[in-house]
């Protein structure tokens, strides 16, 4: 069955599960013994397929440019993080300000209602109807006080 056929690389060599060339650790594992023996790294003829290599690169120059690019990415990521944090702070602040604003607005509304009620009460107290009513009911109040035995000052 096809399933029993061993996997092969592009040169037709058998590839075992434990040395899959697509595994990023595979290349490092191949090189480790050379590092351990303090030997120069030799070329590895089997490459992971996802590594793209330019044909006309200048090794050192290319690596220097890559280092610059990676540093730029790291610093750029830091800057982006700072931006996100600043925006988040801004949003939280604006939310807090919005709540504060709303509570002030509510407070103002309550104050306005109170002032409105006071004004209406004042108007009622100053109205002729109220004064007339008070005058009409004054004898009744006096009788009630006399019956209950309360003085005007008590």
């Amino acid at each position: 069955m096809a399933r029993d056929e061993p996997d092969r690389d592009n040169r037709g060599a058998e590839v075992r599960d434990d040395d899959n060339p697509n595994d990023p650790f595979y290349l490092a594992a191949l090189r480790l013994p050379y590092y351990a023996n303090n030997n120069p790294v030799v070329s590895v003829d089997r490459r992971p397929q996802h590594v793209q290599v330019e044909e006309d690169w200048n090794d050192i120059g290319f690596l220097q440019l890559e280092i610059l690019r990676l540093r730029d990415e790291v610093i750029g990521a830091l800057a982006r993080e700072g931006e996100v944090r600043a925006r988040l702070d801004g949003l939280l602040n604006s939310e807090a300000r919005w709540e504060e604003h709303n509570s002030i607005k509510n407070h103002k509304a309550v104050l306005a209602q109170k002032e409105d009620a006071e004004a209406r009460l004042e108007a009622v107290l100053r109205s002729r109807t109220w004064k007339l009513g008070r005058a009409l009911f004054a004898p009744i109040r006096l009788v009630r006080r006399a019956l209950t035995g309360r003085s005007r000052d008590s």
Partner: protein
Amino acid sequence: MPRFSIITPVFDPPIKAFDACARSVFRQSYSDWEWILVDDGSTDREVLDYLRRLDDPRVRVRTRHQNGGIVEASNDALNLASGEFIVLLDHDDLLANNALKRVDEVLSENPRIDYLYSDEDKVDDEGRFFDPFRKPAWSPERLRSQNYCCHLSVIRAELMRELGGFRTGYDGSQDFDLILRITERAQEIAHVPEILYHWRVVPGSTAGDAGAKPYAIEAARRAVSEHLDRLGIDADVTVTPDLYLKSTRRLSRCPLVSIIIPTCGSRKRVWGREAVLVETAVASIIQRSTYENYEIVIVYDDPLTPDDVIDRLRHIAGDRLRLVPYRKSFNFSEKCNLGVVSSSGEYVVLLNDDTSIQSPGWIEGLICYFVEPDVGMVGPKLLLEDGRIQSAGHFNKEGPNNVAFGHHADDRGPFSVLQIAAERSGLTMACTAIPRRIYNHVGGLSPEYPRAFNDVDFGNKLWLLGYRMIWNPHVVIHHFESATRNPSVSPKEIHRMWERWGYMVNGRDPFLPWFSSAIHGIDHDSIS
């Protein structure tokens, strides 16, 4: 121990002004202070009576029977002070009502602050305030040209005593000398961007006329000269006709400088003559530079750049020339990075091909600042073809802008800001010098910005990592702006810039807070 000791040497002030000064102290909305007044032998009866009548347990008056000068009187006041911080107040000036309260708030937030200064304005005889000075964030290079910190100054008493207080021999600039010495040692320095001090203008005062006291200017010159000595900076300090100080630094060695010029060999009519821009730039370097040890690295588009241009460059620059072909689609940042990794100088100068060197000592004038390890980039005054300013550095306000674009080359700017070397929040990449180690540290120019904003991004990266950027107006270079390519900006670049630095470029500029982006320069109305 009170929080603040306000120290005021007194010598025959106009009584009305002295009274206003005293009232401004008593009006403070913060109460934990003492006021030490040292009368330096005043002869005015009104002043002496006024001092006698000052009846407040927080006020201490000491009388010197002989006039010993402002330094001795100030030191006497310092010796009497028991507060944690010393607040300097002249006998005819005013504190804003909330000055001490505001200072206390800032100091309470950060216990490492040893020195604090605020914005200031001036006050006339009628009590009218004018000439507000919106100051930069801590700007040591600017301080070497002018005592911009001045008022209000608040200093940790312990440090001030450790440094011996005011020094004799610096009368008239004793506070400048003190600030220079304090800031050399301060753990942290804070700026409060609010006007907390009103400086009295009277005939003959320094507030009204900086040239009124020539001895004070000479004392300031000596103070800066000694300050640079203490920092190990070898420089001549001179007084400019505008009465500011100019430090001309000497180089102790002559390291290799790599001048990187990206080009595609394009032509343009400049000063009435058709020319290949890169040839003009290289010829001006060869003809005018007084610096000996430099190489010119031309990163040219291959095969776009004509062969005859390359041949002529070889002829003009000779052994100094290094040619680096670039074979990708246009990306200014990548071209510069390629030039830098292909070069070998200790310092790199990124130079556009549409430039022409004017100042013979331009390389020295740019790299001399790198004796201070936190200086990350230095740039010159860039002029347009017609002689107006193209860039005096960058400032941020509703996005990045060129400072003073289109202004006359000799425009002084408010508080002479266009005449003195000082920190900037960014510089134009048309010409900048950068130490190679710092260029590498920040990852060079970002390839994410192929055309525009690469300089803004680079400057912000330097800022993020704690480096200073200095604009030097004494180095002048012509920049025939965007002569080589289309100056348009892609939406992608704008998006990337805002994604990384939106808050920074949209905020208030730390070094030029009063500038306006609306006119690409100085908004004189907003500061007066």
